[in-house]
Each structure stands twice: as structure tokens, then as C-alpha cells.
């Protein structure tokens, strides 16, 4: 899908630090977990931006910030050119109609005491202007049909459905307000393998049908490649590389992206003995105390003195065609893609 017109979502220098405090009565701050530390990107209408990274890289906090569920320490989120202000009720309400989310765990994301009809209909009760009362039940049934469930099951409870079906219910709830953007936070990772494809296909079909733009957050690089038009790779609260899916997967230039891609098992045993594998040593450092300069340098095989001193900016580097935050960025195809 080619980008068209102005971006629908603009994120500028977004920062979220969670303070670490000590003491019970008199709390004093002793540090901060730098969960998201200066993230900027744009999302175009109808486009899918994949966000990948390992646990602790800040991708889930990023999702919460985009949904205005957490207050950013600094930075802005703009939707259709308008800055989202958490303190202005009307602004926030309009914003929520336009951006919705699909969560990871279909077992905990639906209230077990509510019927499917009440769950999917709740958005209309909150945003009463979207649908007059009499139409709501019909609208909920239409939504059930759209996500491939039987509209007659409107009075059932979540526990009467399987994991994949519950994820469809969560998707229907996200669609109810006809948003332009949906933030998907690991939407298939809790599902069985044979069900994942059903949900991925559903998300793609809905995108085509309703012109949705997705932020697709996942740790599974194969799924992200499949669904994304562009991909951002995160490490310790920062984007280290961002580009079109082909640029990231076939021409990765940041060492972390290369290591990440080479670690993904390919479901094809042919040539497995000769396939290049970059095995990173150790664990990611703590986001409370990230390394100076480049955050990846402690695990990087290319690290030089400059990496400890100077933070590499996310920019287009010589010899590459997309942005990468590495002083020594160099295209190197590790996946051996066709």
C-alpha cells in the first residue's frame, strides 16, 4: 500500500520514564526506567507499521502511550495533525474514537461477566453519538458477522468461545467506533499456530475493507514481515532501524536487526547447517541504567570507542536507503531471502 497524503499519526520524540522511588512515606526518586526514550515515526493512512523488539524494549509501553493510557514524560502524538491532549476531555474523546486497540490475551481482555453483545456494544454506550440506541444491537450483530462470528451468539459469554473466536470479539470491539487507526499489541502470539493465520487474514481483510492503518507490535518477526508495509526495530526504548519491510528484512543495516533476523528459526530444514547465525552474547542491559552512547554496544561485535561516547542518530547512512542508528551501519542480508 503506497503512502498517500499526510500522515494520519505522527509521533515526535516520545519519552516515557517510570520513576523508581525509595521509601514508603517520604518517597524520593532514585532513578527512572527509561521504557521509551525518544521515539519518532509517522504512520500513513491505510498503512501497517510493524514494531518489533524483544521483551523490555519498550514496545508495549509505546502501545500504551499511543492509546493515551499512559501519560508521556515528554513528546507528542498527533492524529490527523492535531496534538492529543490528555487533559482536554473533548479532544481525548474524539481521539479515542479514532484510535483503538487489539490486545494480546483473548482470555483476559474480555470481561467475563459481560455478554458478547454488551462487550462489543460498550463503545456505543460511551460514545452515544455514534449510534442511536435502537440501532446498536443491529450494529453489534453486523460487527460479529464482519469478524466471522455468528450474529446469533450475541447473548453468549466470552468463556463459551475459543481463544481465536475471543480474539475476533476483541477485534469487533475495536472496530465498533470505526477508527482509522488500530494498535495491535501482540494480537496473535497467544493463539494456536493453526488459528494465527485465520486472525492475520482477518486483520488484513479488515484493513482493505475499512482502510485501517495498523501499528502492529509483535515479537514474532515472521508475522510482522507478513503483515507490515514498514517496520521499526526497537532496542532499549529507542528505534534502531526503520524502513520498508523489504529494506529491513532483505537489507538490514543495524547489527541488532541482523542478529535478531538471523536468530529467527526458518521453517525449512534445507541448508540449516550452513545458514548464518549471529548468536548475541548475554542479556539486554536494564532500561533503568542503559549504556552510554549506543545502547547496543555492550552486545555488539562492531563496537568501537566512538560507540561509547557518541549516541548514533537514526538517519540514512552511507550505502543504505533507510534510517539506521549505527555508526557502522552496513547492509548485510542474513535471511537469504529471495
Amino acid at each position, binding site marked *: 500500500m503506497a503512502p498517500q497524503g499526510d500522515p494520519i499519526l505522527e509521533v515526535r520524540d516520545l519519552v516515557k520514564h517510570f520513576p523508581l522511588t525509595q521509601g514508603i512515606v517520604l518517597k524520593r526518586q532514585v532513578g527512572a526506567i527509561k521504557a521509551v526514550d525518544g521515539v519518532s515515526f509517522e504512520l500513513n493512512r491505510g498503512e501497517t507499521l510493524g514494531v518489533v523488539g524483544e521483551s523490555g524494549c519498550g514496545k508495549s509501553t509505546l502501545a500504551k502511550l499511543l492509546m493515551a493510557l499512559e501519560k508521556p514524560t515528554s513528546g507528542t502524538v498527533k492524529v490527523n495533525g492535531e496534538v492529543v491532549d490528555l487533559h482536554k476531555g473533548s479532544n481525548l474523546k474524539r481521539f479515542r474514537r479514532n484510535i483503538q486497540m487489539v490486545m494480546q490475551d483473548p482470555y483476559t481482555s474480555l470481561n467475563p*461477566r459481560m455478554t458478547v453483545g454488551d462487550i462489543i456494544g460498550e463503545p456505543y454506550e460511551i*460514545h452515544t453519538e455514534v449510534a442511536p440506541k435502537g440501532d446498536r444491537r443491529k450494529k453489534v450483530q453486523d460487527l460479529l458477522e464482519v469478524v466471522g462470528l455468528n450474529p446469533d451468539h450475541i447473548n453468549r459469554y466470552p468463556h463459551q468461545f475459543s481463544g481465536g473466536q475471543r480474539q475476533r470479539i476483541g477485534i469487533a470491539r475495536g472496530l465498533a467506533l470505526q477508527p482509522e487507526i488500530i494498535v495491535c499489541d501482540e494480537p496473535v502470539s497467544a493463539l494456536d499456530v493453526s488459528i494465527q493465520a*485465520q486472525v492475520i487474514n482477518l486483520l488484513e481483510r479488515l484493513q482493505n475493507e475499512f482502510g485501517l492503518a495498523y501499528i502492529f507490535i509483535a515479537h514474532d518477526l515472521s508475522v510482522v514481515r507478513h503483515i507490515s508495509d514498514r517496520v521499526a526495530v526497537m532496542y532499549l526504548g529507542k528505534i534502531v532501524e526503520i524502513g520498508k519491510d523489504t529494506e529491513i528484512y532483505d537489507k538490514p543495516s543495524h547489527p541488532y536487526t541482523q542478529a535478531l533476523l538471523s536468530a529467527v528459526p526458518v521453517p525449512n530444514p534445507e541448508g540449516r547447517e550452513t545458514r548464518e547465525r549471529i548468536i548475541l552474547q548475554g542479556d539486554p542491559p536494564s532500561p533503568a541504567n542503559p549504556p552510554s552512547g549506543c545502547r547496543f554496544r555492550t552486545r555488539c561485535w562492531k563496537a568501537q570507542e566512538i560507540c561509547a561516547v557518541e549516541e548514533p542518530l537514526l538517519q540514512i547512512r552511507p550505502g543504505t536507503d533507510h534510517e539506521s542508528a549505527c555508526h557502522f551501519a552496513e547492509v548485510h542480508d542474513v535471511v537469504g531471502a529471495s
Partner: protein
Amino acid sequence: MSDTLTEQKPVKPPKQKRPASLWSDALYDLRRSKVFIIAAVLIAILVVMSIIPGLFSPVNAFDSSTCDLTIARQGVSSAHWFGTDNLGCDTYSRVIYGARISIMVGVFSTLATTLIGGLLGLLAGFYGRWTDTVLSRLAEVFFAVPSTLGALLILAVVGRDNAGIWTVVLALSVLAWPMVLRIMRAAVMSSKSQDYVVAARALGAGPGRIMQRHILPNAVAPVIVVATMNMGVFIAAEAALSFLGVGIQSPDISWGLMIADARNRFLQAPEALLFPALFLSITVLAFVMLGDAVRDAFDPKLR
């Protein structure tokens, strides 16, 4: 492209006996619990007894004209199954009519503590921060007072002349709500962080809707358990306070009061003490058993 997206039938509606939700699981367990059935039958009888005591006793014990001083302190007979008391009133009918006060104290104290403790617990757990700090500290102050002693003190201050069912309810509730607050607060805090609450916030739901639709229905189970158990505790406490002379006052009929009246002639007429004591024990036991059964049914760890 939608051909791969075949319309799906939900999992067979559980044709097995039970669906897997907490409430229906609990109901399923309760219906099969002997303890619950015995307790429920006893409580049903007691409730009917307190509403229409006339069903169980032909003599209206609330009417003092039914007492006859000439037949005071008689033993067990066919006319007076449990004998008569100091004033010549029929002990059997007084025991039956005494159920009303016990049940009322139990029900109203439980209602008051559950409403106050539940509401404050909900607010403390939901808003956290200083709301929680203030409410929790306040609760701890009350919690620190031993409840029977505290109630005794309150009633002593109120004085005998003003004492009655409502002062007893007040005295018991004032000291017992913090327990409900603690339980409610813990339950709210755990359901507050659930994904479906996050999802509701993302939809723009306000705090009122989130509490009412999403948190309360998922947090009330432990409070219900405690409330049931408290019912028996309050009934026993009322009897104790009345026995000590600071609770219910004559001419109101209370089992505690009857036991107090009969204690001086226990050796001559044990029935005057034993029958109200027996009813009291059965009532307390019934509520404690009910609470036990309800707790077991709601506790997923016991499955």
C-alpha cells in the same frame, strides 16, 4: 479473499453440566454441598420465624398481656413447652419471637458494614494514591480496637435508656467495616489491572462506568463470602452485648437478654437458659456454615 475466513461455530455450548464461569461454578458447587443445604434450610426457617413468628407459636410474645405473673417460673409442661420466665411469660414463644432481633441485627449490621466498607474499599482500591492512604489509615484506626470491647464501650457511652436494636447495629458496624474495606480494596486492586479494564479505558470509559461495569462484578465475590460469615458473628455479638446489659433492653426480646435473665436460676430451671442458648448456637452455626460453603464455592484454588 474471505473464503479462508469461514464462518465459525462457537465451541459447542457446554452440553456438559456446567459452563466455566466463577458464578455458575460456585452455584454448581453449592447445590452439591451438604453443608450449604443444611445451612440454607436452617436459615430459611429462621427467616420465616423472624418475619411471621405466629406460624410457630400460638402465643404472641410481643404482647405483654399474654404473661401471667401467677404462673411465673414454671417448669416444662404441655402448656408451656420450655416453661415460663420470671414474669410468667411463655419461654417457648419468647424464644421464637426472639429470632427477629437476632436476624435483624445480623442483617442490618452486615448491610451497613458491607455498604460502607465496600464503597470505601472500592474507592481506595480504584483511586489508590492519597485516597487509598487516607481511607486505609482510617480503617486501621478502627481495626485496632477489639470489636466486642469497642462495642461495649460505645453502648456504655450511649447509655441504657437509648440502647436498642439500632444502637447495637451502629456499635457493631462502626468497628466492623474496616475488614470489608480491606477485602474489597484487595479485590478491586487485582481486577483493576486486568486487560479488560485497560480495554474499557482505551474506549474512553469514565471511572464510574469502569467501576460499575468492570470492577465491581468481578470483585464482589470475596466480599459476599465475608458478609455471610459476618452475619453469624454479629448475631453472636448482639447476644453477648445484650447479656452484658448494654445491648437490647426489655421489653424487647433477645436471646442474649433471656440467657441473662435465666442465669441466676440455672440450677433450678436449666431449660430457661438452655433453649435460647440452643437457638442462638444453631443460628450462629447456620450462618458460619453458610459462609464456609460459600467461601469454598468461590475459591478456585480448592477446585
